[in-house]
């Protein structure tokens, strides 16, 4: 059996602004829109791009931990609030930490593969500015193993996990080049975000990004090997995308030229109770990418655009290696040499990535898909990169926890 036994398409992508520090309209002391606002804005943003919303069959929403940030569960219940078409239709919320959005993508696709639905609205959402960062760090630490890791863990649990990785990478492959590559990753992220009006770093006008990013880490207040610029920010945001079979596209009145095809995906799980086998690489991401390439029958060089999960700059560098663009330990040079820039060999995170656009955790996987779809359709605005007809593919890699839950999805421009 072929991996995908029928054609599935993605269309009608929509991202909200990623709100948080850095955005001019963000004021931590003033009330802000709640999670339902984001779900509705993103959901309607997608629905308004199709002709027949009544033909949407199901809703899937990815969210990590609204129970804690917003004291809100049962998120499937917001689909009928977004649009009456969902009343009494199947809706579900999926969770896999920061890969919740990624899981929402594959759940949508699988639902269509099951023949139970032709059209699925897929949303991802997270609202995180409801608490200060140190309390948010508690909530996000749930992506690790609570009873096995949290007590001995750092106040900023996940930044520290990736600080450990950065330290190990530096030790093995060279401190300065790694540090510079991390700084360059930050520069690329902000430069791309400046072209994306929805990005949290859109208003960033720092004239000296590289030196800012080279700020020496302070283990007394934060992490040993990461500074705050190495980290994605705390963000509120949502994204939405519609998945449809060929039949489904017709039902909702979307032309194939306005949709992209899903050619493969891989959903890979590692054991949350075991430490990473190698701190210097993202093993699970690598397995997922390899599997997706095999299923799609393509190689890294067939991609025109890439989205990786740069929750931290070091994760971005390792994700480039995991995606097969650089050998183990060569990712730092690859990034330093500008090969991941929008005008580089493989334009990566062209709208800012998690560091530049922002990281509303449960929304991120969906946001990555929306941006890949926009790139392949030539609708990426100022962020648009060249899509070579000989390399019509785009890929996203979305990660939850410390390389534990991974989704990779490959898209292709329709004929």
């Amino acid at each position, binding site marked *: 059996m072929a991996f995908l036994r029928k054609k599935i398409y993605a269309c009608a992508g929509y991202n909200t602004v990623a709100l948080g520090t850095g955005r001019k309209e963000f004021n931590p002391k003033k009330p802000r829109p709640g999670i339902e606002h984001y779900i509705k804005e993103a959901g309607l943003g997608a629905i308004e791009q199709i002709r027949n919303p009544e033909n949407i069959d199901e809703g899937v929403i990815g969210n990590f931990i609204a129970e804690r940030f917003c004291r809100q569960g049962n998120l499937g219940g917001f689909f009928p609030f977004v649009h009456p078409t969902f009343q009494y239709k199947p809706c579900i919320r999926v969770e896999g930490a920061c890969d919740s959005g990624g899981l929402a993508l594959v759940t949508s696709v699988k639902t269509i593969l099951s023949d139970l639905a032709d059209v699925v609205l897929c949303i991802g959402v997270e609202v995180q500015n409801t608490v*200060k960062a*140190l*309390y948010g*760090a*508690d909530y996000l*630490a749930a992506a690790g193993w*609570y009873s096995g890791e*949290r*007590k*001995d863990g*750092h*106040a*900023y649990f996940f930044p520290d996990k990736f600080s450990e990785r950065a330290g190990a990478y530096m030790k093995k492959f060279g401190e300065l080049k790694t540090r510079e590559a991390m700084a360059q990753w930050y520069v690329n992220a902000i430069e791309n975000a400046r072209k994306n009006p929805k990005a949290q770093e859109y208003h960033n006008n720092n004239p000296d990004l590289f030196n800012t990013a080279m700020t020496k880490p302070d*283990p*007394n*207040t*934060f992490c040993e090997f990461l500074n705050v610029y190495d980290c994605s920010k705390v963000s509120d945001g949502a994204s939405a995308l519609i998945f449809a079979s060929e039949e489904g596209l017709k039902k909702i009145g979307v032309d194939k030229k306005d949709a992209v095809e899903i050619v493969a995906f891989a959903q890979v799980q590692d054991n949350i109770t075991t430490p990473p086998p190698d701190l210097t690489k993202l093993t699970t991401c690598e397995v997922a990418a390899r599997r997706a390439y095999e299923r799609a029958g393509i190689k890294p060089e067939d991609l025109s655009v890439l989205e990786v999960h740069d929750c931290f700059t070091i994760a971005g560098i390792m994700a480039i290696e995991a995606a097969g663009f650089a050998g183990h330990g060569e990712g730092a040079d690859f990034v330093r040499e500008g090969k991941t820039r929008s005008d580089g060999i493989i334009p990566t995170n062209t709208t800012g990535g998690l560091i530049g656009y922002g990281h509303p955790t449960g929304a991120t996987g969906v946001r990555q898909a929306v941006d890949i779809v926009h790139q392949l359709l030539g609708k990426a605005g100022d962020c648009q990169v060249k899509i070579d007809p000989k390399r019509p593919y785009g890929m996203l890699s979305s990660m939850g926890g410390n390389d534990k839950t991974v989704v990779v999805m490959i898209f292709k421009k329709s004929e």
Partner: protein
Amino acid sequence: MNLDERLQDVSVIGAAGKMGSGIAALISQEMLRLKLENPEKIYRLNLIDVNMSGLDGLRDYLRSQFLRTAEKTIVVLRKKYKDRADLVENAEIVDAYVNDGMKLLNFSTDLLTAKNSHLVFEAIIEDEKTKIKTYKALKKLVSKETFFLTNTSSIPIGYLDEKSGLDGRLIGYHFYNPPVVQKLVEVICAPQTKEELKGLASELGRRLRKTLVPANDISGFIGNGHFMRDGLFALDEVLRLKGKYKFYGAIYIMNRVSQDFLLRPMGIFQLIDYVGIDVFQCILKVMRTHLKDKTLKHKLIDKMIKAGIRGGQYSDGSQKDGFLKYDKNRPVGIYDLKNGEYFMITDEWKNKIDKQIGPLPEGFAPWKALLGDKNKDEKLKNHFRTLKQMNTMGAELALKYLKRTKEIAESLVKQKVANSADDVNAVLTNGFYWLYGPINEYV
């Protein structure tokens, strides 16, 4: 008895006041640090004030300060609580820290509560009779080893010590407002102040991460020695200008010149309001008496007090009306002595008077922008250089003020209030948040 032992039982008298609450916040954090290191020992901070409702406010304030520290130092705090298996999340550790801190505190309206303290901070009203009376009462309660640190900003320490019969157990330890923010502590020793107390005061300053500047035991010390005379100069200028610009116009001009043209954190009249016109008057009186200097008085200050306008702050920290009227801590009006009411500032009036003051020097950057600027010194030089080339009322007044400020500072060194120009500059930059010391090369 070393500092750690003395910190096991401490009292703050006047704890609900502006300065007392800040001192309580600083000391409580140090005591909590010791408590976490020595869980078996008992620590007690007695917070004593005659104002009962003020103590309720103090409880909230200290809780918020513990919370703030816990949140800021959570990375280190997790390690301190590593042996508490029940505390896992940051939020749980923050709560534990706040609770542990609150457990140290003992709120009271009774001076008797201080009886076991070996260290007493006094931050009551700036009135020598009240202070002496309090010290005399305390002396009877506490052990002979107890040391006293007074937050007086003007009364000579030797005089207080002698009148209270403290035998060298008193030192001047003058925090600046607000104590948790301002880096400066002016330390004033009397000739009889015990060496052990001097050593202890320095050690405490290091622990509280304060910049200690020694001042000699002359009324007003460095801080008020400068501030009072600086304020008097501005008041004299108001008298000179009021004929042409009216009283409120003159207040506006001098306030704006001192803030924008001299690049201070706030204008001189806003500062007097912040301190309190009544406090300003009271300190002038103390200094006038002890220094036997009749010039330390101003009729405009007396008239304001007579009119019932006192400035100062509400217990929530917001500004009471004084020379200026405030809306959310921003000046919106100016007191009109003649009519006994506030003149409300309109855009039209402001534009007109600003025009008369003249423009700011080209390339002007406000105090706040320069504060963290790496090229601050160069920019200050340019600012004052440009000012000198401008032929406007604002520039002229600013340069005159700059010159007078320097003279005041230099006379403090000459009269041996301060040991050096650096000490005066340190007080103004650390205690008043000036960008530059008054003894400078700009004039």
